[in-house]
């Protein structure tokens, strides 16, 4: 990792984070324009640098609600090139389907980013280096991680806005599971499940520290995500340079209290801001963007309830 800027700091030592919520009604909108407008709110030091975009390409996606849209990945690539990046690659290591090419072909990714040979890296089969994890939330301690990620100057996590039946939500932090190489850990990367998903998310996020997050919520997934849910249109892109704050904002948009998601709450202690008062919202206001998601059966408790109900339950 080339001097990732974000260090592990408690919230009171961090400056206020900024998250920008932008409207994009469909994937045929001018997504480059929308992203350029949003990115101008941030200091993004990518001139002359290498940028790695990590989307969430889970598998063959017949509904368009499972994978980050290739249109968003392509628009982000173009936007970072316009900001002066020397090189921008899209990189992913799908967790369930070993045939990455089949996924990319089914999404027609090359129509959006050009040559896959030059602009895409399969993180499942990349060079790997053993890395000591920076936290000990799980018992993993160290992992082999792809050199493409470790060597990139600027890493952008680009998840889909989805519910997740084991983690509650899958956003920019959970999306980092995709960088763990299948060539070392298999398909799925079952070692992360045995280490307990929320704990593994924390350890990987604290070690990789993505510099930026762009969440594709134009069409997300609700219900039994990340695979068996139903499409949910919100018409939003949520971006920011604090992935924890971006995920917390997304959760609020989905009608979920972020502090009730264990790994997000813990991430809010060291990795970024979780509390609303520490996040400056740009673009759309959360109240206007809110679009409650149907939650997986075992995560109904995450939903926002009235203050009265919460006080009664002794939560507030």
């Amino acid at each position: 990792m080339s001097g990732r800027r974000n260090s592990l700091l408690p919230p009171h030592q961090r400056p206020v984070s900024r998250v920008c919520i932008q409207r994009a009604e469909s994937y045929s909108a001018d997504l480059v324009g929308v992203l350029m407008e949003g990115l101008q709110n941030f200091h993004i030091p990518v001139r002359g640098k290498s940028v790695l975009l990590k989307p969430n390409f889970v598998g063959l996606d017949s509904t368009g609600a499972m994978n980050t849209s290739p249109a968003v990945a392509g628009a982000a690539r173009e936007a970072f090139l316009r900001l002066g990046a020397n090189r921008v690659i899209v990189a992913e290591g799908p967790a369930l389907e070993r045939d990455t090419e089949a996924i990319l072909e089914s999404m027609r990714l090359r129509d959006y980013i050009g040559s896959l040979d030059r602009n895409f890296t399969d993180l499942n089969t990349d060079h790997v280096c053993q890395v000591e994890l920076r936290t000990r939330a799980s018992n993993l301690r160290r992992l082999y991680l792809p050199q493409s990620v470790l060597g990139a100057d600027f890493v952008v996590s680009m998840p889909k806005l989805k519910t997740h039946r084991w983690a509650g939500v899958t956003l920019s932090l959970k999306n980092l599971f995709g960088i763990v190489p299948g060539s070392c850990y298999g398909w799925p990367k079952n070692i992360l499940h045995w280490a307990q998903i929320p704990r593994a998310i924390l350890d990987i996020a604290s070690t990789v520290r993505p510099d930026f997050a762009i969440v594709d919520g134009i069409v997300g997934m609700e219900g039994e995500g990340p695979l068996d849910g139903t499409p949910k249109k919100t018409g939003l892109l949520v971006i920011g340079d604090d992935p924890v704050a971006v995920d917390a904002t997304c959760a609020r948009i989905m009608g979920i209290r972020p502090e009730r998601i264990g790994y997000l709450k813990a991430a809010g202690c060291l990795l970024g801001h979780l509390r609303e008062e520490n996040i400056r919202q740009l673009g759309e206001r959360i109240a206007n963007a809110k679009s409650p998601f149907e939650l997986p059966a075992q995560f109904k408790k995450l939903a926002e309830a009235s203050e009265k109900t919460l006080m009664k339950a002794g939560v507030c």
Partner: protein
Amino acid sequence: MVAQPQSDGSKLTGFETGIHRVMLEPKADTAGCSLEIVGTRFLLKSQNPDGGWGFQPVLSSATEPTAWAIMGLEAFIGRAECRQACEKGMAWLEDCQLKDGSWPAHLGQREGCWVTSVACLALASKLDEGIAKRAEVLSKGLRWLLNDWPGEGNLWWRLLRMLEGSNLGRPRGWSWTPGTSGWIEPTAQALLAVQAAPPELYPRGTKKRIQMAQAMLLNQALASGGWNSGSSESYGYAGRQQPGPTSWALMALRSQEQGQEIAAGLEWLQQIHTSLNGFFSFSLACLCLNFWEVPYDISRLQNTFFTRISPGAVMEMGWTLLAISPPEESPLGRWRGLKS
């Protein structure tokens, strides 16, 4: 990992390695060539100086692609250059074995994993040459495999399930990495490796483990035909068939009577293989169908090869060579105990 030296003496490191790709051959060079020529030439050219192969020609050597490249080239062992490349590859594989008998995914790693099965399969396929050292290497590998139980077999796990009232009688297979859950692909690959080895090298308990793994695979077959990577059902949702796990499970069950599960799986794979758009799944499906001596669309394999600019995939080339070779003359024919 050590980055591969480039022709200009420089090395690819970090970010560069991820975006650097080697083109297979310009179209003009492959036009009119047979699959055998294109495939063997590709594998010969992409062998690393250390004798192994990487997942892509530019990447450093790893166990899985090395084992499949060896087996692919061995299908054409009559050619001197293929024989030499196989020997070099086999030496790399033998050197890469860890003290406990397992193989790591990449050279330099200290923990073994499921690729041990693939390495054992490559060794078992070349055992005919009667090298004593190779039999010892294989024997150590088999011992590790037989001692490698998935995490759901451990006492703590069984106690928890017992308290939940869950069924403990589910047959166990093999996991991707030690101590995690059993999955279809590692189970099938371990089963292939063990069955391909000569029975005189079997550690104690091998036959029971073979039966258990076969039962696990048959148990997880989907009602609609084929296999998913894991359970046939999860959280009330039926698993979706996947070509990879289906191909592996079918190959591992080659010694079985062709019951309902196998017939349905073969039928599904034969039906869908012409619509697969990834070289990985397609070449693997062709290998499986060839192993079962079921017709497959060779012309599509030809087109896939000749129209792609850069498949750049070593394992897929190995599978392709195995898929186009007559089973009796290739490693497939030598996988002992696998033919019913």
